[in-house]
């Protein structure tokens, strides 16, 4: 019999999707079909989001930005 007081909340489901769920809740998850179904649906969405590509602006973006940036006068202690 599953203890409903142990059902995972949304924060815990997110931790599980990241592989960070503490052992006690992980044991509950293994036993509770309700939580597992919920966690699986949540994980699918999170996975789709984390796999989204990063987009790039057109080439020359940095030059277009820098053309409008006022650079202060360099100081003496540059050590890069």
């Amino acid at each position, binding site marked *: 019999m599953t203890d409903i007081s142990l059902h995972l909340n949304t924060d815990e489901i997110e931790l599980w999707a990241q592989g960070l769920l503490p052992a006690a809740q992980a044991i509950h998850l293994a036993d509770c079909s309700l939580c597992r179904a919920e966690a699986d649906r949540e994980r699918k969405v999170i996975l*789709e989001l984390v796999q989204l590509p990063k987009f790039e602006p057109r080439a020359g973006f940095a030059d277009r*930005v820098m053309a409008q*940036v006022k650079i202060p006068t*360099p100081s003496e202690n540059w050590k890069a």
Partner: protein
Amino acid sequence: MSAASDQQVVAWAKQGHEAAFRELVRRYERPVFSLLYRMVRDRALAEDLAQETFIKVLNGIASYRPEFKFSSWIFKIANNAAIDHLRRKSLDTLSLDGAPGAETPDQIRATSLQLGDRAESPLDEVQNRELGTAIERAIARLRPEYRSCILLRHVEGYSYEEIAESLELPLGTVKTYIHRARNELRGYLDDRRD
């Protein structure tokens, strides 16, 4: 320089070294542009807003306070630019039936919104390809506030605390927005699968 922390690069920028400014652009152009593009769903506009964001940040670098993360500061300015644009856009009341003052048939025709008469440009094709997937379309249906929170959390990988700092929202509000956004996305994606 690429191994230095953001705080160190900002310190160099404050000393007036162009390479440090360029390094900040290099580090953040993709995440800032990606966020803005997904917020406004228009490549050219996203690039204008990204450029505006960087110019504001880099010209204001002297006022940057190092107790805050640089990423929080730049995402705050980018997000504000996107939200301001979306608010202005929602206030634009473009009539399908022409301008309010248009009375004659010619005036009405000249000022009315024409739908479906514009050929798809190469840029439109790129946008449709990039933002046409089910998950991208689902993200577009979210409220802008939910959209920025979910993008910063799961696409950019920032913590709830960092998002709260960036967007100047209480931590509880950020958590609520992200949970609601995920629920709505699940709903949209489930509808797709049905």
